[in-house]
């Protein structure tokens, strides 16, 4: 019940932002659309509502995410500059390849977000995820090492640390 109520509040707030003004017809349509969204998707948005630490957990996650955003954009910018260097070079000098990297994460939301972060960082691209071995298959534009441990250190380790703190 708490989960449904919170999902409705979030959907309604996003609707208000997209509508841009608060009048009676906007409010009525927003309530209707928010209710439909809540009925179908309430178990997808807030999965860890029954966390033992309760509300404090959400507060902690919010703080960590706010600290994480500048770090993430710094990483993305540096990686984008690396790919741009390959583009501008007179003769493109890279050795692309597909490497296999295992992960320690168990939470399914964390695994999805980590795959998205890998893809969003230029130079690496998630191709597939093996559920049995918990391993990503990553297309890497500039394979510097063939050892799995070093590839893991270079590609995913820092994002993995942040996600371990967030989904504790």
């Amino acid at each position, binding site marked *: 019940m708490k989960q449904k109520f919170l999902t409705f509040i979030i959907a309604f707030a996003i609707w208000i932002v997209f509508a841009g003004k608060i009048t009676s017809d906007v409010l009525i349509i927003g309530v209707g659309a928010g209710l439909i969204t809540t009925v179908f998707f309430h178990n997808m948005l807030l999965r860890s509502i029954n966390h033992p630490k309760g509300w404090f957990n959400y507060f902690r996650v919010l703080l960590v995410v706010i600290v994480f955003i500048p770090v993430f954009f710094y990483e993305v910018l540096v990686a984008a500059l690396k*790919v741009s260097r390959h583009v501008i070079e007179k003769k493109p000098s890279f050795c692309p390849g*597909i490497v296999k990297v295992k992960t320690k994460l168990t939470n399914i939301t964390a695994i999805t977000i980590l795959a998205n972060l890998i*893809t969003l960082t230029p130079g690496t*691209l998630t191709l597939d995820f093996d559920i049995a071995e918990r391993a990503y298959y990553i297309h890497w534009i500039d394979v510097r090492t063939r050892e799995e441990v070093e590839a893991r250190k270079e590609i995913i380790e820092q994002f993995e640390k942040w996600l371990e703190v967030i989904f504790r």
Partner: protein
Amino acid sequence: MVIREIFFYFFMITGGIFAAITVIGLIRFPDVYTRIHAAAVVLTISAFFLTIGIAIYVWDFYLSLKILLISLFFLISNPMATHSIARSSYRKKIALPAIRTIDAYSDFIGEDQ
């Protein structure tokens, strides 16, 4: 006022440079997967910068918030589209990578290189 314009020009010019690099990379890179790197991923940065620049230029509460939400959707939807294009083009053998130093994925699917 002046500081806001400086930020606006900074974001727009950086985004424009990244978009130009994207197009050059799309032409110059050899095969599908490296082109996806250039096309989709650098483009995400440029689109994000352009939307933030527009949000600073408009500087109206509801409108800026709306544009920032659009940039958030870029960040969520672009990796998914990229991933599905790459995965399906490998699995259906539409285009295999032309240059590869190491290929762990073909072992996983269960076929020789």
